[in-house]
């Protein structure tokens, strides 16, 4: 039995585990055992989906899509995205319509399209040839061969540097860092080499690689499988930083990131890999980087978030409407660097209030940047001080995760505070 068939059989068994009513976000013991090493903290504990979000709710009522996509009836023929630069429709009947995907199958689909449409594209990282710990690269090696989809040793600094050299030579390089927490050994290469190659060479070279990494809280990840280090990368000029909130955005944004000439840090909220399910266009499409999306329109307060936190804000907005008749507008930044200043400022000028929320710790988080920019650009429109609802300034806790994450209640309280100010 080859390693590949082991991986496939494990995946098949894992599929059954994942189809159980309680939906483990990271798969069960059978799925994780084969990956060994660093995931000890993640194994065997079945996760409970703590997200109160429309897409999460959907995933609980329907079976995961990756093996049952063809059983869904009456999928919408296309998806319309209310981007700040104007609505965008993708997945029309002429281009194959939509198919039910979750976030990891959407990432997988985007990688497949990237490999199909660009013969120089290569995908590599720890265990990616076997599908990766979150299955994002499953079947890609079989489809594209071991020269284009391959495993690396466990060496994040080396992986990043290798990818930078590869990209600088003109190859489309897509690296996976197994967890965003492990991007810190690679941070030197990403911040000092990838981000600065174009600038220090006066445009002679660039390192337009894409580095995918799962990020964010997952219920039981503990200190080193839960962090959201996006602010580190946003504070590094020369990088772009992207975080999608669902399969539709993940696919379109990932394809745009891979095809962008700049180094892009693509952060995938791991809690959404299975929890977020949506009809996703089958076609090859890109969503523009640097453009925010209005997820929920509203009048009284602007809520800004990204990644999994958008779902928390949407739920908080619904509670605010139901309890206090507050009309909250939810904006998903999608691209965190460079972020869509125009969309946020325009929204705050209409609503007069801002709550910005992220899982990363409060201090030094991107929320502070959003708040400061709004204070400068929309000062006279503000009816209340900007509120930030973020992770606390502690290491990401294991036992205390539920107190750490900026949950619906904390967001709701901030909404009520700024409206009542």
């Amino acid at each position, binding site marked *: 039995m080859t390693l590949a068939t082991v991986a496939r059989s494990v995946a098949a068994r894992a599929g059954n585990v994942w189809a159980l009513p309680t939906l483990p976000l990271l798969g069960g013991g059978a799925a994780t055992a084969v990956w060994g090493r660093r995931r000890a903290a993640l194994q065997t504990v079945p996760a409970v989906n703590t997200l109160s979000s429309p897409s999460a709710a959907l995933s609980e009522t329907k079976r995961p899509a990756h093996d049952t996509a063809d059983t869904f009836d009456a999928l919408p023929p296309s998806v319309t995205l209310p981007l700040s630069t104007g609505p965008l429709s993708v997945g029309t009947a002429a281009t194959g319509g939509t198919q039910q995907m979750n976030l990891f199958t959407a990432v997988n689909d985007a990688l497949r399209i990237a490999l199909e449409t660009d013969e120089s594209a290569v995908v590599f990282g720890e265990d990616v040839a076997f599908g990766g710990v979150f299955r994002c690269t499953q079947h890609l090696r079989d489809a594209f061969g071991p020269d284009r989809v391959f495993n690396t040793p466990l060496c994040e*600094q080396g992986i990043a540097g290798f990818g930078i050299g*590869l990209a600088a030579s003109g190859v489309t390089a897509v690296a996976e860092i197994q967890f965003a927490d492990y991007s810190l050994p690679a941070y030197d290469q990403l911040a000092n*080499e990838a981000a600065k190659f174009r600038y220090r060479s006066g445009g002679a070279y660039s390192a337009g690689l894409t580095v995918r990494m799962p990020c964010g809280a997952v219920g039981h990840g503990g200190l080193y499988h839960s962090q959201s280090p996006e602010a580190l990368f946003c504070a590094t000029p020369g990088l772009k930083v992207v975080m999608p909130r669902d399969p539709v955005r993940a696919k379109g944004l990932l394809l745009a990131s891979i095809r962008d000439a700049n180094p892009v840090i693509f952060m995938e909220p791991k809690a959404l890999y299975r929890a977020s399910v949506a009809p996703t266009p089958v076609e090859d499409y890109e969503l523009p980087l640097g453009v925010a999306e209005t997820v929920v329109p509203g009048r009284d307060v602007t809520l800004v978030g990204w990644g999994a936190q958008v779902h928390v804000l949407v739920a908080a907005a619904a509670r605010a409407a139901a309890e206090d008749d507050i009309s909250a507008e939810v904006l998903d930044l999608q691209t965190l660097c460079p972020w869509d200043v125009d969309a946020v400022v325009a929204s705050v000028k209409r609503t007069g209030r801002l709550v910005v929320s992220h899982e990363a710790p409060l201090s030094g988080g991107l929320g502070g940047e959003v708040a400061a920019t709004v204070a400068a650009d929309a000062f006279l429109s503000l009816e209340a001080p900007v509120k930030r609802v973020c992770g606390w300034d502690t290491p990401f806790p294991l036992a205390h995760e539920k107190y750490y994450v900026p949950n619906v209640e904390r967001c709701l309280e901030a909404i009520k505070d700024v409206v009542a100010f």
Partner: protein
Amino acid sequence: MLIVTVAGVRSKSRSAAAPAAEESSAPLRPLEETETYDLPAFKTHRMDLDSLPTSTTASGAQLQEYFESMYRMRRMETKADELYMTGHVRGFCHLYNGQEAVAVGVEAAVTYEDYLITAYRNHCQQLARGDTVEGVLSELTGRVTGCSGGKGGSMHLYKPENRYFGGNGIVGAQGPLGTGLAFAAKYGGTRNIAITMFGDGAANQGQIFEALNMAQLWRLPIIFMCENNRYGMGTSTARAAASGDFYTRGDYAAGLYIDGMNVLSVREGIAYAAERCRTGEGPVYVEMDTYRYKGHSISDQGTGYRTTDEVQSMKASRDPIDQVKTMLIDGGWATLQSLKGVERSLRKQVDAAVEFAKKAPEPPPEHLWKDVLSPSASGESVVRGTLVTTGGKVGTPL
């Protein structure tokens, strides 16, 4: 104990320092004629020593070219030192004096199709990869005429058309990058190789071992070239490295020790290692035994951690330029007099380049935010946070 055989020294040879009175007025030997030279001993690790050459043939023209290249380099570095002292070069400046045979010998063994990447001591590689002294000194002095438009400075010289991936400011960062370049060469189905150069200090960096592991695992065509110039900044290898036999430190990878002060030895050793890479046998960890005459950078006088005697004796016994001069004179292709003429003309060229660099324009202020990200479709290169604005919005330039 190192086995040092100064190539080309014949028993009856006149030394480079012979008095001018001995110069004859006999016609010089045609440059296309060749001579055979014994090579200093190589040392190998997981490679067959017997398959390496013990002698090589060089023509007068080749030696003349090596001499001119090395002399131009040394003169340029000397001028760079002066430019730093007079405030024309700012920031950092790491000089190559003493190590020229490495840059020149490597280029004699590979082509511009092969990738080259190195650390911050990178001025002379830029010359060897086809740039001009004007280009290098312009970059050092922060002029728009420099190879990076004045924005890279001393540590960041590049020559994309000749596959020179230039200088890296982080110690050891070029190890993984070079590995990526080697993968690209293999992935593209070419016979090209990559050479990643680093110092004896960087040889202790973890990422060198990460990169070497990948390279060996995937049999990538790459030479990990450790320029052992004896000191990592101010710390000698004896104080910093658990093993000073750098050519053995690739462990599972093949290793090769080369006398890096002898240009022919560098040429032959690298040619052998490169051919091994091209045939798919995987990486070679090369140790270039060389010596840095100057300090680590300008701020280091290079005297606090070694004796003046050590430096002087190295200059007197192993200087790479003197070795080639001796070969040229002994071979009858040149006389001290004729070489002095060549030196004079090279000095003039470098002096002109200094004046060029001093007078060249500085990059305009708006280049501050150029090349941070790729230009937009309209060709603009605008980045937030660099403009006088309200908050982060794009507005009027500073």
